[in-house]
């Protein structure tokens, strides 16, 4: 339309409005004669006239009021930018009858959180305020990976608020029935979700909290497949065994008898009747959800609420098998047992239910997916004797025996609270302690520590004379002390990380005598009870091996194992398994001498130090659940866990004496991300919190990509300029590389399964790469063109190798043989320098062909990266401080010093790890680790 025509239409519209409506037709007939240039004119004027009638109210209210109305409709609290404690509201996430949820920034930790507020008009509604507070109270009492985490609760200017973890994903509802379309989940998924829900419920019930409103809308599935139970708004605190009067009062306030609360479709029969609820009411609701996940339809349906309620009370649930012929009878039994009308006929606890599902997961899941029948009562007929399956059956057996285990008695509020222990400090100097053990006299303590830099040395100390005496040479690290007083040590121990060293295993008498070498390349060891044999952990061809006795492989993993400890009877070995190499998150495991492994407890952020209780019934270990302090936990062989110590500051368990006393350390540590630029004399510390690790620099040396591990379970990818301007948090994960143009950061998110993610450093969209068959990622590096990446990782059950993947899609393509590691891509994108399975460096061509061995690099070298011309590499050897970085010419093998890297402050400095050098060789980054330990022994415990 032209402006002229618009004006003409406008004029006609205006004139027509001046004419009485009944004469407008005639007016338009006359005003718009049917001539060619008038084609469509009349119609357009008429349309506009029609819109005038509609538009009388339109735009009558000013935009400010319109916006305010919209705001009032969607965001009654209207508080963007407002502070609640140290949380600042960013934007609204959603609104519901029970609360409004906002995206907020936790300014103290710099993380994003979800902040929930009661809508203002409900603030004066006592019932709603009580429910809100109830949710806060119930949820914050719970700390479990399958329950939405509440970080904080507070009141700001009379408005109560709840700070929760921010979840990304969708409600379980979204994966189930939509409208009338049945949409069953694959059995494997349904069982996995069920197992997770049961775990969360068990944790809640253990705390005396009943959910009472479990339904698919209250179950949230995060992007990495973790199920979180939400909305404890209707939850009820059961009176614990020794409840205080306050708690009982709370309970009375919340429910008036006969009141129906919760959603009818997922109610238990006792809930429909308005009777007293108990944990097994949640199990009924769980059964309905499990049924719906497997079947795609609800077990009890009806056209009205009354019909549904009647069905819940009277009808037998339909058989799962009717609609899903592939359904496993064992699974059917589990569902039906949850749906028993009488609570006492259901699973006794969510814990039991979880075990039952767990057993299915390990034993029969492949059958579920292939549709084969599998009898739950005839395990002996199964032909493949896989350890995992045997474990599942052992667990089922254990379940039958320990049906009412003392599950988590240490957790109950006011009941079984970790006892207060009296500690005596043994060391009074600045040193980093790596391992400490009681000598056979039960009093003398042997420990290895570094007093200066990171070279360990073994010392003995007696509590009555706390002056450490060195034994053995520098570079010797303690692994274990036998009942006969013999030390298992590492000679020439090289510091790896955490408390981990690698060296030559040797045995040495505590009193007098030279070490006797046993085996090279060992990381950890422990003695058999009689002191004759050793259990060891060592890395062979890229995999960690547990051997006992030496030479007999009990277990092998592609991640890491640590803290091997033989039970007092010598029949089992306890250890940590860390699925990601170099990462100390993981699980506590026990393995029998026949290789039967049981995972006792999992989900720890960081695990350090493990020992058996003197009676061999419990494994004590120190771990951190949230990245905060280390606590000491005890877990029995049937998986019952307790908190054995949670002293402020946290303790790392070193050893347990035969009379039950502990030896423990408290550490103070810090990782720092450092940058050297030609502009300043001292290197700059760009750290955020206390676990900042440098990764890569932009080529101008102005921007550092680094990780901060203290922020989130999946860590944080951060960017900060060397001018000290505020940092930018890109997202979860461990950063791997910055693209040549500085616009994209590659990161590995250590979720389950791990993900490789490309974050934009400025505008752009986050991308997640298809892992195809890759099970674990070890590294990722950009090609200079920013189109492809070099991935280090492994497929299930295979060794690590390198793959090239196009970021626009396509599966990763293997470019190096299995067993290759520490791969570095040349800037021209043609070559990969990597260690072969034999440990030698070779150059592999991306295009294939024979590998070329390189000059000048030895097994001891750590290659940082290639030089800009793709002819030399930067490398360093060992962990000496300062770190001497050399340029190594790959053709001639010639080495020349590039830089000696270390920060100005070297107190307790254990590692300096160079991470990146710019093409112009003017700037570089590195990570430092500093640590100081205190050593304690508990006073007599019994």
């Amino acid at each position: 339309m032209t402006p002229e025509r618009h004006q003409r239409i406008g004029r006609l519209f205006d004139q027509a409005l001046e004419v009485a409506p009944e004469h407008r037709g005639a007016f338009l007939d006359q005003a718009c004669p049917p001539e060619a240039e008038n084609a469509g004119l009349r119609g357009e004027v008429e349309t506009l006239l029609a819109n005038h009638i509609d538009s009388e109210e339109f735009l009558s209210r000013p935009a400010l009021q319109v916006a305010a109305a919209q705001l009032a409709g969607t965001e009654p609290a209207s508080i963007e930018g407002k502070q609640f404690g140290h949380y600042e509201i960013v934007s609204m996430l959603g609104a519901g009858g029970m609360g409004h949820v906002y995206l907020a920034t936790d300014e103290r930790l710099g993380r994003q959180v979800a902040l929930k507020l009661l809508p203002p008009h409900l603030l004066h509604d006592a019932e709603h305020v009580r429910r809100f507070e109830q949710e806060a109270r119930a949820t914050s009492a719970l700390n479990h990976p399958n329950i939405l985490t509440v970080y904080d609760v507070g009141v700001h200017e009379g408005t109560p608020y709840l700070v929760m973890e921010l979840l990304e994903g969708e409600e379980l509802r979204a994966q189930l029935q939509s409208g009338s379309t049945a949409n069953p989940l694959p059995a494997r998924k349904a069982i996995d979700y069920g197992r997770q829900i049961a775990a969360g419920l068990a944790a809640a019930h253990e705390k005396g909290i009943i959910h009472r409103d479990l339904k698919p809308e209250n179950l949230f599935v995060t992007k990495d497949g973790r199920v979180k139970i939400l909305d404890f708004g209707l939850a009820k605190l059961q009176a614990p065994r020794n409840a205080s009067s306050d708690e009982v009062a709370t309970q009375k306030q919340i429910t008036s008898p006969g009141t129906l609360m919760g959603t009818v479709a997922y109610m238990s029969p006792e809930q429909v009747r308005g009777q007293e609820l108990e944990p097994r009411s949640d199990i009924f609701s769980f059964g309905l959800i499990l049924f719906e996940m497997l079947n795609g339809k609800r077990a009890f349906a009806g056209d009205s609420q009354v019909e549904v309620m009647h069905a819940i009370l009277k009808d037998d649930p339909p058989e799962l098998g009717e609609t899903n012929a592939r359904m496993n009878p064992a699974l059917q039994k589990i569902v039906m047992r949850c749906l028993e009308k009488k609570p006492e006929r259901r699973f006794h606890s969510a814990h039991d239910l979880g075990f039952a599902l767990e057993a299915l997961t390990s034993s029969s899941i492949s059958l579920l997916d292939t549709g084969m029948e599998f009898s739950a009562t005839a395990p002996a007929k199964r032909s493949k004797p896989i350890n995992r399956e045997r474990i599942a059956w052992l667990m089922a057996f254990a379940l039958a025996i320990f049906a009412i285990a003392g599950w988590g008695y240490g957790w109950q509020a006011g009941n079984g609270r970790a006892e207060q222990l009296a500690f005596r400090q043994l060391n009074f100097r600045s040193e980093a302690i790596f391992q400490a053990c009681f000598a056979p006299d039960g009093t003398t303590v042997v420990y290895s520590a570094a007093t200066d830099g990171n070279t360990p040395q073994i010392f003995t100390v007696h509590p009555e004379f706390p002056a450490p005496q060195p034994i053995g040479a520098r570079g010797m690290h303690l692994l274990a002390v036998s009942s006969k007083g013999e030390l298992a040590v590492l000679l020439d121990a090289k510091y790896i990380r955490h408390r981990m060293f690698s060296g030559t295993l040797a045995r040495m008498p505590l009193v007098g005598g030279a070490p006797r070498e046993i085996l090279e390349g060992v990381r950890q060891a422990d003695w058999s009870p009689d002191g004759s044999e050793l259990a060891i952990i060592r890395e062979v061809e890229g995999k960690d091996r547990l051997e006992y006795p030496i030479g007999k492989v009990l277990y092998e993993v592609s991640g890491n194992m640590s803290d091997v400890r033989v039970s007092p009877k010598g029949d089992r070995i306890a250890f940590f398994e860390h699925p990601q190499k170099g990462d100390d998150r993981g699980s506590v495991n026990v393995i029998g001498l026949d290789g039967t492994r049981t995972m006792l407890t999992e989900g720890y952020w960081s695990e350090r130090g493990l020992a058996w209780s003197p009676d061999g019934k419990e494994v004590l270990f120190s771990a951190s659940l949230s990245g905060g302090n280390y606590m000491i936990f005890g877990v029995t062989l049937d998986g019952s866990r307790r908190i054995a110590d949670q002293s402020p500051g946290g303790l790392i368990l070193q050893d347990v004496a035969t009379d039950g006393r502990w030896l423990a350390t408290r550490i103070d540590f810090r990782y720092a991300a450092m940058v050297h630029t030609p502009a300043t004399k001292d290197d700059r510390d760009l750290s955020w919190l206390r676990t900042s690790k440098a990764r890569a620099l932009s080529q101008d040396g102005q921007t550092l990509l680094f990780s901060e591990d203290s922020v989130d379970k999946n860590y944080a990818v951060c960017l900060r300029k060397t001018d000290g301007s505020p940092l930018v948090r890109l997202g979860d994960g461990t950063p791997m590389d910055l693209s040549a143009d500085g616009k994209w950061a590659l990161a590995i998110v250590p979720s389950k399964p791990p993900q490789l993610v490309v974050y934009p450093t400025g505008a752009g969209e986050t991308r997640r790469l298809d892992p195809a068959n890759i099970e674990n990622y070890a590294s990722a590096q950009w090609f200079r063109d920013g189109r492809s990446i070099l991935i280090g990782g492994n497929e299930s059950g295979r060794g690590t190798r390198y793959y090239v993947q196009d970021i626009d899609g396509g599966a990763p393509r293997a470019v190096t043989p299995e067993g290759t590691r520490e791969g570095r891509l040349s800037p021209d994108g043609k070559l990969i320098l990597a260690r072969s399975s034999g440990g030698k460096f070779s150059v592999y061509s991306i295009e294939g062909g024979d590998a070329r061995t390189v000059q000048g690099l030895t097994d001891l070298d750590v290659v940082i990266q290639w030089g800009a011309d793709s002819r030399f590499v930067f490398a360093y050897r060992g962990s000496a401080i300062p770190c001497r970085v050399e340029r190594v010419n790959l053709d001639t093998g010639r080495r020349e010093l590039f830089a000696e890297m270390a920060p100005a402050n070297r107190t307790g400095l254990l590692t300096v790890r160079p991470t990146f050098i710019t093409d112009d060789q003017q700037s570089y980054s590195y990570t430092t680790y500093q640590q100081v330990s205190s050593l304690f022994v508990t006073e007599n415990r019994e």
Partner: protein
Amino acid sequence: MESPPTQNITQLLVAWNHGDQDALAQLTPLVYRELHRLAHGYLAGERQGHVLQTTALVNEAFARLIDWRRVEWQNRAHFFGVSATLMRHILVQFAREQHAAKRAGERIHVSLSEAAGLSVKRTPDLVALDDALNALERLDPRQARIVELRFFGGLSLEEAAEVAQVSVSTVRREWRIAQAWLHQELSATV
């Protein structure tokens, strides 16, 4: 914190009119605050059925933001014009953010068990309106300007006439046409 003196807002408006983007950054929160204050009042009014009270509140909000009594007489028209453009800029931006927040809300989700209890009033979508207004500007800049002054600037017919330097009857006529035309545009796109 209380509102900064109006003089301050005036200076910011002038600075923004001269292309100072920092001034916009300082003005936006002031408008947002009024918006939030209004939303509260709006809710209270809705609940008690006091729609008239809401209108008073809107006028108050405008007065707080753009207090013409303090503006020198010869600058008044110019000042109204600038503030209407500013309100359009900020309110449309606000609406865009709301859209984005809603979209984000679909992905990032936190415990919400019941449906929203508050109904959203049927109101023009500011983002779509802004687009339509841009189209109208190409056909008839004066009509677009009058809509900007009245709808975004909150001006009366008389005030809009003063700013646009046309008669009140012209404003009334142009407003009527623009109103119908925009309504038609928005209905067609929905």
